[in-house]
């Protein structure tokens, strides 16, 4: 049952991600992106990573995408006032996209297939175990990444106050 659910949700993820790119209206794009993130949440639940699932739900679907939607509604982008892009820009975009695709395929080929025997503890994603891992062996990187986020936040606040300083 788990596998069939996985394939179903994975198909939905791919379809919604494609709709993000192909829909003309930016607000529709964001809404499809929210659905894509929701399918990711389901994937995390299937992997027994409850904490990650809920955090993905809260942070990505509940906060970041609300901000995306907020900005898009504020800007009110639509087809009438969309700036015309020159052909040069389009060609550059296609080349850059293809380069990214080649890199991704290359890196996927380089990685080995994950070994199920190595995943010793299937309950690692549960809250208690994850907390012990994060604040035990991975204490330093965890704290460092939080400082990184804090500095980004301070930077953003400073940028908005540029005129007054």
């Amino acid at each position, binding site marked *: 049952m788990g596998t069939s659910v996985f394939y179903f949700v994975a198909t939905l993820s791919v379809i919604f991600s494609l709709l993000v790119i192909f829909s003309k209206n930016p607000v529709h794009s964001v809404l499809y992106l929210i659905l894509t993130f929701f399918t990711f949440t389901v994937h995390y639940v299937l992997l027994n990573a409850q904490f990650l699932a809920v955090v993905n739900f809260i942070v990505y679907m*509940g906060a970041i995408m*609300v901000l995306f939607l*907020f900005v898009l509604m504020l800007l009110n982008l639509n087809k009438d006032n969309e700036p015309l892009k020159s052909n040069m820009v389009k060609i550059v975009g296609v080349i850059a996209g293809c380069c990214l695709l080649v890199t991704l395929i290359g890196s996927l080929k380089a990685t080995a297939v994950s070994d199920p025997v190595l995943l010793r503890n299937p309950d690692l994603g549960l809250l208690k175990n994850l907390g012990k891992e994060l604040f035990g062996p991975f204490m330093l990187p965890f704290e460092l990444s939080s400082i990184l986020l804090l500095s980004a936040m301070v930077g953003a606040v400073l940028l908005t106050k540029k005129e007054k300083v």
Partner: protein
Amino acid sequence: MDIAFVIEKFILVTIIFAISLLIAMYSTYAERKVAAFLQDRLGPDRAGPFGILQPLADGVKMFMKEEIIPSNASKWLFMVGPGLAMLTACIGTAVIPWGSAITIGDRIIPLQVTDINVGILYIFGVVSLGVYGVMIGGWASNNKYSLLSAIRAASQNISYEIAMGLSIIALLLVTGTMSLKEIVEQQHGWHWNILYQPLGFLIFMVCAFAETNRAPFDLPECETELIGGYHTEYSSMKLGFYLFAEYINMFVSSAVMATLYFGGYNYPGMDWVLLHTGPIIGPLIGTLVFFIKIFTFIFFFMWVRWTIPRFRYDQLMHLGWKGLIPLAIANIIITGIVIAIIEKF
């Protein structure tokens, strides 16, 4: 997964859903009665004795009215908006423990749909999704007042979610678990979390008012500035869904506050009553007490609505970012220090 388990959960979900809708229905009636009482009026008294059938009359009216979809609206999203508002309002009830387990024969039936070990975070996630119904509906209406209201709702929800999350962190420091069932059981015998986290409760409650868009934080539907806010273009039952979702949200957040801070289904003398009433009636008395606590909170929501005037938008942001967030952080630090001292000595 045996079939009895599925049936048991199905019945439980149905009952909870029906009760949520019933309470939301009669909250609309209670709201008018409370407003009337506070303004020295009578309130609805025509339909049935004391106007008790008023919600039914309202429901019939909502269903019968003409349904209008503006021609320039984004048709699908216009319909998705109210549905989403209703859905996110209802799914929050899944993790709330309504009472201690009932024993029928040799079968133990927990009065909780599911006890996931990230219960609080689940509630928090559902709350943060709640704004999408308002945002999508407001945007899809293609009306500038609705759009302004949607934008207001988004920024208000995001601002107050932060303070809400921080107040929950202080609570988690005290309880040490995220499962709502365990949190309730820890509060057995007057160990109510309100006694340990009074400031945290105050912050949580203010944020709950803001998240449910209730007065004095009802800026998304501020009539004097925005006509009807995000539901200006809505009519018929779609409008009804939006109004209904607000009352269900109020019910769910009252239930969450009673669970987290006021001992859930615990009450003084509970063990004695449980011993003397048996394994079926006893837990149901607990559930009754829980609902009394919920109704008290719902009354408080209404009391505040008809007493305190609405905030201005800059005051709202000021309170959220400069008032509640620093206060919540201070609360976390103080709680942490106190817990460290208690563990040390």
